[in-house]
């Protein structure tokens, strides 16, 4: 094979891979429920093992808002490596910090209208507090996967654009051990997770 033909072959193989790959990787929105003790469990993080997957991407900034002396949402799930905006939308100063297992930082005080950013570069759980207001607390769960969601107040969740296949899944909620398991996931499957 002459050297001049190498790029052509590479491009052809890449194109074929892209075409056939996309044809076989059918994606769907995975729906499920989380419960604990028979009751719907809000604010549980559910994710599927897929560390090398590209997954769906969004240009929307990921925000952990500070308003009315609280963090919103109270549980935030992100893919490891995501930068999170922490705007202060209260007219008092806030001082966001985290000192537990995950990302450790102290952003110092900043006033209304200003935003600081934190990159959650490794998988793990970060407990977020304000050093001024003792009742402000939130969790940021960084996962090594593009397929994750947080359950709503009815315990329901939706993970977007999941390729069909068999996955290891995990669920976490504050104060509980992680749930783990394996399941073949397809559009007809509802993933029901339960803490006893």
């Amino acid at each position, binding site marked *: 094979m002459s050297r001049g033909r190498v790029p052509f072959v590479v491009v052809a193989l890449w194109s074929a891979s892209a075409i056939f790959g996309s044809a076989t990787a059918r994606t769907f929105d995975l729906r499920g429920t989380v419960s604990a003790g028979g009751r719907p469990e809000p604010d549980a993080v559910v994710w599927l093992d897929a560390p090398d997957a590209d997954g769906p991407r969004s240009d929307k900034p990921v925000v952990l808002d500070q308003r009315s002396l609280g963090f919103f949402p109270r549980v935030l799930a992100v893919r490891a490596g995501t930068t999170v905006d922490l705007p202060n939308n209260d007219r008092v100063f806030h001082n966001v910090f985290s000192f537990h297992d995950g990302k450790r930082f102290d952003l*110092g005080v900043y006033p209304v*209208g*200003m935003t600081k950013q934190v990159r959650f570069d490794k998988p793990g759980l970060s407990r977020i507090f304000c050093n001024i207001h003792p009742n402000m607390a939130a969790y940021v769960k960084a996962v090594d996967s593009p397929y994750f969601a947080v359950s709503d107040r009815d315990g329901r969740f939706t993970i977007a654009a999941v390729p069909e296949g068999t996955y290891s899944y995990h669920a976490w909620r504050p104060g509980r051990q992680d749930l783990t398991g394996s399941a073949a996931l397809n559009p007809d499957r509802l993933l029901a997770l339960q803490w006893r």
Partner: protein
Amino acid sequence: MALKTCARAIVCGIVVACATIASAQSVAVELDQSAGYSTEDVAAAHTKLRAFGEVLPAIRFNVTGTWGKQSEESDAFAAAYPYTDRPVVLDAYAERTFRPAGRLFGLRVGRYRTPFGISSESDQGYVGFQRNPLIRYDDFFALSSTFFEHGANVMFGAPRASLEASLGAPGDVGEHTRSTGLDTVLRGQIVAGAVIVGASYIDTRPHLPRAGADSASPFGAAGGEVEVEAREVAPGRATFGGIDVRWMRGGVQLRGEFIAGRPFDGARTRGGYVDLIVHRPFMGPITTALRAEQLTHTDAGVLMLQGERYTAATRVRLPHGFAAHVEIVHNSRALPERRATAVDMALSYSVRLE
């Protein structure tokens, strides 16, 4: 009198409106309790109940009621709370903040803390210090953390440069209160990198001892005669200007506030403080703080009061909403009715219901 009645009516109206509308909206209730003992032979207990949230998608409210009791009047444990031995309303306001095209516009109406300098309850009360700065305690003829306004507060500008103006009437709590009248507060703030600089100005009425509370006079006088005397020697208007600076990086905050002005005609008060507050991530739940402060008060050119104070404080956040506070206070120059060195210890508990 009419102004005060009007202001009370506004506050009551807001409280009732908030309570009514809020029943179907996002509301949180927070309960704080604290108890402390100082080696100045002062014991104190305090309860605070706060309701806050959004009554409509963009309109927020904050209503705070408090009850506090001290074994004797002191600035110990007074950083965030007044000790009046009766229930009092602190904040009761509604506010809305607009963010048009990166700008900032905020309106607050009701009863709120006087927005002069580093004035927020959260700035003073929850970083470890148990006492007000000297320039924020109403015995010392400067300003007080128990100053409140009945009125309207407008903020405009951008997140990095904003102006705030408050127009209202004094609505103070505590032992020393300003007489009623028009009250103007202006404040500007600039954020440049890790530095926040503010400048404030207040034009208000002098604050005077409440009837029957005169034993707290820093000059050691007592009795009803002093009430008359104080009113005679506190004529005119009170005006103060101040500068506050904050710098922070990596959990280290250096801040200071300096004020100078006229507590009443013929008198001058000036002073300030510098705080070093350290909360590095490796320190976990522990925050440490150091403060150096000074205050000088003259009346008709005669030095009446001069104090210097140094404070080392620690606050530890404990599980389940508890926090422990310890501070050592040293007065290097005689402040009236103060020991040279005192240790303040407090335990607080806070819970939020949503």
